[in-house]
């Protein structure tokens, strides 16, 4: 099939402001991903097109972008999902994720995102290892409690789809709360209190207006809004 792709372009060395680049790619398989189409543009038509990508199957989190107005991973979005059924043409519009400074084309500055991530103490805390020298014991039920939030690949699709984050970049954002949740609900961890202080402050979970953009954007199908609600619940009740 034929794909018409419109890409938001910005080269800091030559452009004063962003512009649109339009390309036509032929002989696309409906099962090709948007990343495949972007690669064909870059490799066959314009090598200056710049994007991040690595694994190409939705596990590394490099290629979150705004595709036809919604955040997705380019490698996990097939052209067939975008084309009208039965049509041999597809129109795709690709822009960088919102709320972070554009470095070049689809590449944004991820540092503020990772700074928020770091702020929630995203690491396991418990130095009292079992006396028998073996693993901490944890029941399958306790393990299941935080399973969903262990899936996060830090792609930023959720945080950069959140109106509260767009409104104020100091908001810690859904991805960081997901990370906090992963540890707060881990029966082995002992630093919940400190994490709750961070996500409970004025730039924490209370900025969430539960509009579910984050849940819809998550390529790992994490129930992000639910995780945020669970953290809010802990703060409200004062216990896990």
């Amino acid at each position, binding site marked *: 099939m034929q794909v018409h792709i419109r890409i938001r372009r910005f*080269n*800091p*060395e*030559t452009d004063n402001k962003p512009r649109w680049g339009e390309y036509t790619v032929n002989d696309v398989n409906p*099962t090709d991903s948007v990343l495949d189409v972007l690669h064909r543009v*870059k*490799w*066959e038509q*314009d*090598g*200056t097109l*710049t*994007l*991040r*990508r*690595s*694994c*190409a*199957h*939705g*596990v*590394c*989190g*490099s290629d979150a972008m705004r595709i036809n107005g919604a955040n997705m991973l380019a490698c*996990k979005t*097939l052209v067939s999902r975008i084309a009208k059924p039965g049509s041999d043409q597809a129109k795709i519009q690709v822009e960088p994720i919102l709320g972070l400074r554009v*470095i*070049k084309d689809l*590449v944004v500055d*991820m540092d503020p995102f*990772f700074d928020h991530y*770091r702020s929630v103490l*995203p*690491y*396991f*805390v*418990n130095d009292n290892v079992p006396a028998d*020298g*073996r*693993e*901490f*014991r*944890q*029941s*399958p039920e*306790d*393990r299941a409690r*935080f*399973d969903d939030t*262990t*899936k*996060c*690949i*830090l792609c930023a699709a959720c945080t950069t789809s959140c109106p509260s984050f767009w409104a104020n970049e100091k908001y810690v954002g859904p991805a960081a709360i997901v990370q906090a949740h*992963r*540890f707060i609900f*881990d029966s*082995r*961890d002992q630093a919940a209190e400190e994490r709750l202080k961070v996500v409970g402050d004025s730039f924490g979970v209370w900025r969430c207006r539960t509009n579910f953009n984050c849940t819809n954007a998550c390529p790992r*199908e994490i129930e992000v809004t639910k995780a945020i609600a669970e953290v809010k619940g802990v703060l409200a009740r004062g216990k896990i």
Partner: protein
Amino acid sequence: MAELKTHTFDAVIVGAGGAGLMAALYASKSANVAVISKLYPTRSHTGAAQGGVGAALGNAEEDKWEWHAYDTVKGSDYLADQDAVDVMCKDAIDTIIELEHMGLPFDRFPSGKISQRRFGGHTNNETGKPVQRACHAADRTGHMILQTLYQQCIKHDVNFFDEYHVVDLIRVDDTVRGIVAIEIATGDYHIFHAKAVLFATGGWGRCWEVTSNAHSLTGDGTAVCLRRGVPLEDMEFFQFHPTGIFRLGILITEGVRGEGGVLINNEGERFMERYAPSIKDLASRDVVSRAIYLEIQAGRGINGKNYVHLDVRPETVNYYLEQAGESRRIDREYIESKLPDIADFTRTYLGVDPVSEPMPIQPTAHYAMGGIPTDVDGRVRANEADGIVQGLYAAGEAACVSVHGANRLGTNSLLDLVVFGKRSGMHMAAYCQKAELLPLPENPAAEVMAEFERIRNGSGGIKSTDLRTRMQKSMTKNVGVFRTAELIQEAVNDLKELREQYDRNIQIDDKGKRFNTDLLEAWELGCLLELAEVTAVSALARTESRGGHAREDFPKRDDVNWLKHTFCYREADGQYRLAYRPVTLGRYEPKERVY
């Protein structure tokens, strides 16, 4: 002229996957360490590993590290160094417990202990039956290892240089002085002056057309070492994983077969019963990949095409469990909870629901058994004798210890990362305590900067993508699952021509400085071309079949002439020279390999 900045550290770690991060955690305890990655660390391909990490914890049934060692040696087709295998399998137990203590969310048995499952080639040595040895977190074990190690690095304030692309090693005789890197966002060159350098840059599956490997797996560290005079070991041994998604190559974990999934040909036959009567679908990967290839050649691919089915539908799995006299049964929920990512991949990319349909699969280029030669502490060998390059280390897939020999067992790559990442980090830290910071040579970045300017300004009209596609096609056709002298020679000829084209005629579009991935991809292609050549040259010389190196013209293993490691050097004139090093044997005498 681009700007040049210099940093000084005790040690530099290149690559931030499992091996690099584990080394960083340990080395940072006493040394001033920089971790440099061309990606954000959490993008590293360790995160794509699925099924599990092997350790004889014995949480489900009796197991011993010695059994794990024997399975590894047998899996390696006796090419692994048995002293190194012992180190890995013995250290495995404490290292996995240590990862758990770092918070790694392993799946759990009802006892609360780490859950373990079956995997290819892992057996109870007394009964010969598959043993539950693969510790796992659903089917995203690598993701959890990568996340956990990165989290711990944050906790311990490790210094990261994210999106810095390392492009050269500064070596003077048999010592190292640091590395040269490009800051991707600005295009500036940086020199990291250090006492020690560790490469943990992963594999180079992108030499082939169908691969499970990330686009970024271009073997940079391995190629840089080769250019700086380090020989590469056992490069002819590259693993083709039996179950990649048809056409795409995306990995479908062996854990699917560990949970009871079976391979089925067009006649509805579970064909592995013929090739490996004892452990069937859980034979070593080389054995299963060859079986799939032979089924396809015999016209028994699905609908005559070049794929077979991997069937994990509960009714199929339960049928074979019953046949085997096992009481265990599985259902939809079990698959959704044990293999959620696999189900997601096949639904997303194939529109196939593995609960109700079999998955179309074909072998996919997956893992480099060979690489930068090291000892068990990650120290890089200077030659096929016992020489060492002082201060130079390698770990993970980039390295060859050798614990995988001619064929790696599933779950042993994640294990290799954590065990040898840790050992390298510790050794490197101790080395930095006593070593002096040796001076930088004059203009240490001049040579690599000139090479980048050549690529940037090239006007020969040849695009990277053309050369890359031709390389991948030639390697797939000629240096794949089955090989002959004639085919490999064709690859050698193709690659020589491609390298000449690359050296003379490469042309890129992006002439800028900032975030110039056009330029960096072209440079990465140069790495792939050289590693492909080393692979082909090493494969041509080895006139036997062993593990992942299957020669149709030499179908038997030849222990009299070939029980030895290949060391391939790149000479100053660009020619390759081969030398050999004996295998370190131990408790296990080489014998015929039957599964």
